[in-house]
């Protein structure tokens, strides 16, 4: 989500800046005084601030969190946990009936993509489908949650919010050589199931809670992930833009409030004053920006001369890393120079040249019904040796109160959203008055209050949601897909499905599971995975696979240096280098956000370049050749018609996680037959054919190449890039 605030601020601040050029240099101080003296001007907003009214506090998301009891339902037989009662209650009110559970093959593919971003292997599907255990599904979830792929999947969701990139943006788009450490920290923290309250605390104030702890230092990279105009002339302007970005980001990500809207003027719709914005910003005012700091948590006072070089900065930094042993890795993390606070001001009309009245750090009033104060000094819970103001630690504690109505509703909604494709609130970054209302307010509150009860464990929350009958529902009621259903179930399912489509076309009530398109990252990972090519390497600096030729020629040569080790080209998408000014083309066509503002919900467009990427790119060609190679090799010991049938089946199972039916086998046989005939007739030399890799020795090149084409066509099925 992108706020308008930064833009307005800059446009506005630039106008006075322009005036400044025409005025004598001391005009600014005069200007401020005039502003202060004039009646009705905004400079005294802190005093004239509109109080929060009872009515303001009535908006659903500002109301206190209460723990609702799961409602009574008519059909007490349906449902597996309290979530289902909240869902069923609303369905019953509308006379809708939930769909039966999806069959096991569908379910394992859904939940595997959901938790790991990868397709299940055929052996995993077989094991699950035939698992006699009562709790086979629960065991499956536990296994997936325990895999490292979980963090690699859910880490990306968080990195979207953190507007993560490994460069500065703007003209030079300089490298941030250690930015990957934050990405790795996120993946690792999720995999270790760091409790969400701690996860937040470390990202806001890891340096204060755990001075000297490298992990905690790296975590604070969160707020500083955004774009930065390193080459702007005015340092004050740069600082102002970055501090406002941090403040707006914290508001959006943790509170679901677009408080960035209040940097130039009071928020037009939400009860957030301009003073609220700058009071929150005051919490970050002490942060030492624009210098790299040690990522091992060690204190450091002097800057290491990064400033000096501009031209060969990137080479130098890379060299620094590898050549000599220069001490701890350095990067953009929170660091303060002692506990003495810098004064902070309301910036008149968001103009960095016009500091208004001094403000004290405080939490946005509407989100702070308890009137909790920012700790006045280094708080008692901070270790003795703390050399910081303690302001951020105070903010972090406040954000993780177990009764925080906004913070908890926000995270509950985000987790739900990534399991269902849509949140209970469909505007996950906007819980204020301009956002949408929740479809199930009580359910949202129940989950929000449940998280602290689960010791803030996100994994336990996933498990809770995933084991609900609501999650397990089929996404379609047309029975042919659901082999396990009884005749009765089929009849009922098709009827409920029809009614759900008719009465609730957007599926807000969840009488069925949503169908979801995979993100570009997951599609790429799936292509690599089903073709047996996915590298298992984890972590480390972002890697750069080759770019399409057309793009390679249009960028600065030093902006994309293809990684020398070919295996690195096949690593999971989350490890690809993130250049702010150049989205990786395959992800770009599949709606990857631009990493300038926190993105809580990706667009999902359907455009022809996506089809072109899946049909014509090197990525899909390679995947098709390797999938064909694996399949043909694996079936090489068979003979005759059985062999081809087995090949078709295996290709289906690897790419789509299911067996083809007879009609599908026939279609595939027909494709292979006609294409082989055609290729034979064409008589192209075999080096011009898309041969499988490896090509089994006894295989005719044309029939093998036809099989590669068959594999390519499987990647172009809707089924391949959709969950369900």
């Amino acid at each position, binding site marked *: *989500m*992108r706020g*308008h605030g930064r*833009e*307005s601020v*800059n*446009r506005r601040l*630039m106008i006075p*800046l322009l005036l400044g*050029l025409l*005025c004598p240099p001391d005009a600014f101080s005069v200007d401020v005084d005039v502003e202060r003296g004039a009646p009705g001007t905004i400079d005294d907003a802190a005093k004239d601030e509109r109080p929060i009214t009872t009515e303001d506090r009535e908006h659903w998301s500002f109301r206190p969190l209460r723990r609702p009891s799961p409602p009574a339902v008519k059909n007490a037989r349906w449902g597996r946990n309290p979530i289902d009662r909240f869902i069923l209650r609303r369905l019953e009110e509308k006379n809708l009936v939930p769909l039966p559970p999806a069959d096991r093959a569908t379910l394992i593919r859904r939940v595997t993509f959901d938790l790991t971003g990868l397709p299940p292997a055929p052996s995993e599907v077989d094991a699950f489908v035939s698992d006699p255990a009562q709790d086979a599904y629960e065991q499956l979830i536990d296994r997936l949650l325990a895999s490292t792929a979980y963090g690699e999947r859910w880490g990306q969701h968080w990195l979207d919010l953190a507007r993560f990139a490994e460069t500065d943006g*703007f*003209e030079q*788009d300089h490298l941030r050589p250690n930015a990957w450490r934050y990405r790795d920290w996120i993946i690792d923290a999720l995999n270790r199931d760091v409790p969400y309250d701690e996860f937040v605390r470390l990202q806001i104030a890891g340096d204060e809670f755990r001075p000297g702890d490298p992990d905690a230092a790296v975590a604070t990279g969160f707020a500083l992930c955004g*774009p930065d105009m390193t*080459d702007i*002339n005015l340092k004050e302007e740069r600082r102002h833009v970055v501090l406002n970005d941090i403040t707006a980001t914290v508001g959006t990500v943790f509170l679901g409030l*677009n408080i960035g*809207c209040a940097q130039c003027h009071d928020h037009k719709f939400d009860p957030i004053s301009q003073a609220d914005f700058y009071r929150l910003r005051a919490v970050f005012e002490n942060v030492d920006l624009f210098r790299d700091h040690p990522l091992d948590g060690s204190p450091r006072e002097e800057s290491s001369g990064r400033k000096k070089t501009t031209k060969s900065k990137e080479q130098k930094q890379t060299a620094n890393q590898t050549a000599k042993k220069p001490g701890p890795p350095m990067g953009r993390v929170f660091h303060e120079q002692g506990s003495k606070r810098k004064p902070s001001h309301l910036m008149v009309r968001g103009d960095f040249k016009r500091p208004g009245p001094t403000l004290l750090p405080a939490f946005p009033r509407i989100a702070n019904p308890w009137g909790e104060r920012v700790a006045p000094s280094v708080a008692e819970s901070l270790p003795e040796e703390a050399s910081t103001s303690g302001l951020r630690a105070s903010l972090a504690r406040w954000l993780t109160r177990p009764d925080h109505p906004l913070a908890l509703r926000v995270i509950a909604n985000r987790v739900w959203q990534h399991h269902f494709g849509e949140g209970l609130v469909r505007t996950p*970054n906007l819980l204020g008055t*301009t956002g949408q209302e929740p479809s199930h307010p009580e359910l949202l509150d129940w989950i929000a209050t449940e998280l602290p009860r689960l010791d803030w464990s996100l994994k336990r929350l996933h498990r809770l949601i995933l084991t609900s009958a609501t999650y397990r529902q089929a996404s*379609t009621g*047309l*029975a042919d897909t659901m082999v396990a259903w009884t005749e009765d179930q089929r009849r009922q399912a*098709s009827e409920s*499905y*029809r009614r759900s*489509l008719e009465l609730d*076309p957007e599926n807000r009530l969840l009488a069925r599971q949503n169908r979801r398109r995979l993100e570009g990252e997951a599609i790429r990972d799936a292509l690599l995975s089903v073709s047996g090519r996915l590298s298992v390497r984890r972590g480390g600096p972002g890697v750069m696979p080759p770019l399409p030729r*057309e*793009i390679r020629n*249009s960028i600065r040569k030093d902006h994309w240096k293809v990684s020398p080790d070919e295996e690195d080209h096949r690593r999971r998408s989350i490890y690809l280098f993130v250049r*702010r*000014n150049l989205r990786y083309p395959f992800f770009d066509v599949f*709606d990857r956000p*631009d990493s300038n503002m926190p993105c809580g919900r990706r*667009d999902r*467009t*359907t*455009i*022809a*370049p*996506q089809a*072109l990427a899946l*049909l*014509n790119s090197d990525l899909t060609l390679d995947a098709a050749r390797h999938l064909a190679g694996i399949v043909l090799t694996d079936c090489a010991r068979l003979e005759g018609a059985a062999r081809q049938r087995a090949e078709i089946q295996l290709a289906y199972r690897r790419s789509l996680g299911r067996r083809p039916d007879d009609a599908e086998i026939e*279609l595939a046989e027909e494709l292979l037959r006609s*294409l082989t005939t*055609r*290729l034979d007739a064409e008589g*192209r030399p075999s080096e*011009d054919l*898309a041969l499988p890799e490896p090509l089994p020795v006894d295989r005719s090149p044309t029939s093998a*190449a*036809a099989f590669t*084409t*068959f594999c*390519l*066509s499987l990647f*172009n099925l809707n089924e391949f890039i959709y969950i369900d």
Partner: protein
Amino acid sequence: MPNVTLPTDLPPGGTRREFLAQAGGGIGSLALAAMLHDEGLLGGEGSHDASSTRPRQPHYPPRAKRMIHLFMHGGPSHVDLFDSKPALKKYAGQPLPESFGQVMTRRKVAKNPLLGPVRPFRPRGASGLEISDFLPHIAGCADELAIIRSCHGDSVNHPQSVYQMNTGSILMGKPSLGSWLSYGLGTECRDMPAYVVLPDPGGAPKGGPPAWGSGFLPATHQGTLMRAGKEPIVNLRPQPRFSGGEQRAALEFARKLNRRHLALRAGDGELSARIASYELAYRMQSAAPALVDLSGESEATRKLYGIGEKDTDEFGTRCLLARRMIEQGVRFVQLYSGDTGGWDAHKNVLKNHGTYCRRTDKPVAGLLKDLRQRGLLDDTLVLWGGEFGRMPMSEQGTGRDHNPWGYSVWMAGGGVKGGIAYGATDDVGLRAAVDKVHVHDLHATILRLLGFNHEWLTYSHNGRDERLTDVAGRVVWDVIA
């Protein structure tokens, strides 16, 4: 069987409408554009409609129906091209008088001696508009031009200014003018996207792709990069190893299976849209190369653009492509002249601008003449300009630093007065001084020419009605005929 119509290609609700719109001519008549941009997209904050590129009517009868933006990247020097300053000539070699006050510059050139215009200016055409000898061909079209000599923007830096000229904001990530036009007008042509960018083969402008990004508008409205030559669009061509019947066979197979898949998921408009997008992608593979195939153009036309001449061949080819796209109904074509450095003449204006003027002068004039003779100029708006101008003070002796405080752009064609100059900079060309035109004002004027009230062309994002001109913008009526 369930009581649902099966199988169906027609999704319910909003997407059904879009689907019908695109299927209206029958799949057979659909081509590049529709595929690129009109497939019933879901998601985003706006209505489903917001991502469509079906043609739409603007607020007023438009004076221009389409636009070509000739972006001279790096910052062409107004005081050497379109803004004759006798005083600058007179005071050359002396420092800027104190009376001009403090000047913010990129490279601390404020105290450097003034540099006179490096080539002479002369009155041109019936209008007598003064244009430099750098641009003899464009000077020959003087009576078509409305030169705005009082433009100004907000940043002395390239990327910020490139963003601002494109999006109104100096920050990355806002929708560009072309995206707003695609969103507001859609495209009448189903063979091409609404917004096409022809980058300089030497490299992207400073700041890169966000310059033609769609920001918070749906991705369907972002600029599509096209290049001259055999591979105009990324991944357009089938892999050489699938050069026989492979791709068609794969598509055919996928289509059959996708329909089976859809049959059991009736009502999913997104799945239907994807099926259509494949059909369209397939056709696009022949439509786009046909567009860049210039073999049908006459020798006279090629000569007009300087195609075949060493200096002008490259830019001339792109100018001709721009005309061909405009003819096809593309709304907005943007051409960049200048690689990552481009017109950024810090060191030697004569040499730098000599090179870039030689490359672009004849092709640009050729484009104007060709549009005129084909009757296209009446409703095609042409905009020429950079992200800013250059300082009257010298840099490194014979160069000039960036100047966003005052510079020139010109417009020609659809609805614009010909042979006029609007506004003025101060005596030396340092700052816009008379009838100042901020980038927001320029955008407001362009939108008006294309039929929009810039305050009404909005998109609701994060609870705010966003627009190209933010909270500013004033239409410069005096340049509108």
